[in-house]
């Protein structure tokens, strides 16, 4: 039996989500035995052979005109396409440009902005092509990655919880940092997946996995105000790695630079 052909693609990102695959030290050789990793530029110099893919894993957000054409081609050649991480799923931290004027950001960082061939926005893959599944996280969780690969190749829906970090916190037996110490925490509106990591380290959740399916930020912002945060600080809490995700976007818009938004 021929092994399924799997490719890993990168758009604007930090490489951390594809590294998650290489960080599955106990599974990596088994995964490599089970599938044919035909294109994975970070890990292999084997060139694109021009064939189609049973599964494409896509990291990063769309930020250049070339990206727009490239993701369309990847979609055309892929039976299944799964986005991995906050950049591919929600635009990533670089989507903060979407709230303001990209030209101003360019002039802060680059001496000769005219050389840059970038779009005014950083957008999730699903804004451009159909996506079969979106795996959340900045970075993604390795166990969940193995689950989505397995599920995709078996033709079933991945078993990934869609509740909030709050539920994970209760399961982990953590005291609630928001209640116990008035520590600002996005756990009530953030998608599960990390195992309630931050409360276990005495800090509030800062939303790396983006909004949970039923997130309603209104009541939480009231609670955050009661912890002593002003509106700008609340906006900054939401204006990070999933700022452009619907659910977080509406609050994030009031973060620094908001006057021009």
């Amino acid at each position, binding site marked *: 039996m021929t092994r399924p052909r799997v490719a890993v693609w990168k758009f604007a990102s930090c490489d951390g989500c*594809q590294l998650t695959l290489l960080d599955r030290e106990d599974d990596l*050789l088994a995964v490599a035995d089970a599938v044919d990793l035909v294109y994975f*530029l*970070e890990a292999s110099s*084997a060139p694109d052979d021009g064939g189609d893919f049973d599964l494409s894993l896509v990291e990063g957000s769309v930020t250049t005109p070339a990206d727009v054409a490239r993701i369309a081609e990847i979609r055309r050649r892929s039976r299944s396409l799964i986005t991995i991480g906050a950049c591919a799923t929600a635009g990533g931290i670089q989507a903060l440009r979407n709230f303001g004027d990209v030209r101003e950001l360019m002039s802060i960082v*680059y001496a000769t902005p005219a*050389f840059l061939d970038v779009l005014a926005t950083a957008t999730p893959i699903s804004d451009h092509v159909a996506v079969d599944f979106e795996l959340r996280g900045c970075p993604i969780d390795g166990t969940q990655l193995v689950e989505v690969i397995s599920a995709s190749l078996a033709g079933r829906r991945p078993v990934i919880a869609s509740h909030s970090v709050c539920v994970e916190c209760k399961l982990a037996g953590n005291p609630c940092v928001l209640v116990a110490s008035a520590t600002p925490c996005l756990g009530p509106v953030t998608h599960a997946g990390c195992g309630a990591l931050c409360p276990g380290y005495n*800090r509030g959740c800062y939303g790396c996995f983006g909004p949970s399916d039923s997130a309603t930020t209104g009541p939480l912002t009231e609670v955050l105000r009661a912890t002593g945060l002003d509106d700008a600080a609340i906006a900054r809490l939401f204006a990070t790695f999933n700022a452009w995700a619907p659910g977080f976007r509406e609050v994030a818009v009031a973060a620094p*630079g908001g006057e021009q938004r």
Partner: protein
Amino acid sequence: MTHKARGGRLVGTEALARVEGEGAMYVEIDGDEVRDVRLDIYEPPRFYEGFLRGRAWSEPPDITARICGICPVAYQMSACAAIEDAFGVDAGDPIRRLRRLLYAGEWIESHTLHIHFLHAPDFFGVDSGIELAAIDRPAVERALELKKLGNRIVERIGGRAIHPVNIRVGGFHRLPTRREIAETREDMARATDLAEAVVDWVSRFDFPDFETTHELVAVQDPAGYPVLGDRIVSDRGLDIAVGDFDDHVVETHVPHSTALHAHLVERGEYLVGPLARYSLASAALAPRAAAAARAAGLGTRCRNPFRSIVVRAVETLHACEIALDVVEDYIEPPAAHAVVEPRAGVGHGVTEAPRGLLYHRYAFDAEGTITDVSIVPPTSQNQAAIEHDLWHFVEDNLDLGDDELRRSAEVTIRNHDPCISCATHFLDLTVVRS
């Protein structure tokens, strides 16, 4: 991709493999003359320095970690160093020891990844670490175990291996438990043996004779081999305070390249990273790392970038020994973090990322809101030197066929483990159009 160009040869790759991020190589040859050599960067920019303005002083450790998934700890450590410098905070020695432990974990996992999955395939003539496993499975299994042990330090001390959550200005959100320290001690006892075997394994590879001519620059660490510190030194007498970095490093345009390159004022191109650290401080290596370096045939200095794989293996072993030292003589800090009181001012910080010196500068207003940021990653600093090495390597090997020349040229780039994701938030770039 090989084209005939103007009666000459154009040897390049459209996409460099086994590096972090997206780049390409462009080499133009006319007869016996190299016309142009470029490491092109087309990784799209993400504008970190732009959107950090207006954020709070507490935010850079979490935000700048996202510049690089391979070395997030380096970004967190340099950010903390710079912000603490601005506010006059001394985190204290016990916190610094824990930072060394965390950083050792990142060096172990990052170096082990580069050695086995990005670099070693070149010495075996295969495309990937996975193909390497078909030739030498025990070596790859050993690498995976060692990488996992390094990652486990970052997970225990930092919360997770990629983008750790436990790091804040002044120290940590919570201190490690006794159990986490004890487990790390067991892990590192095993890791030192594995790392020692890796040094022996890589030392048997065949290395071309080639020497880089650049000035070698690293952090001067009062505790020994370069990791943390507040002075920057070179093998040619540079010795400056971190606060003077901006006065000594300039970024300029180079002919035929659209990328900004870092140079030392009146001194020229320079190299940061394993070769620089080793050549400046091999005398400060931990005992087993020093012995392994000798057995591997490294002298007190190393200027051959192809041998950087041996230096990385030696540094991996050193990191295991440092981690072991921290956990064996664990001194519990009096608090998880120092008290931080923001004030107006500018702070500078450097630490040694796996790929070399990483500089951060932050300016704050009186409330601790960021007004200006500069981040200079190792790959930006190395880019001019990498191109220079590439130029000379091609000149010396013009008799090779195009395929062999392209393959060797790619290796000269991978020797330096360039991290393009890191560099690109900073570099000017253009899309390569042939």
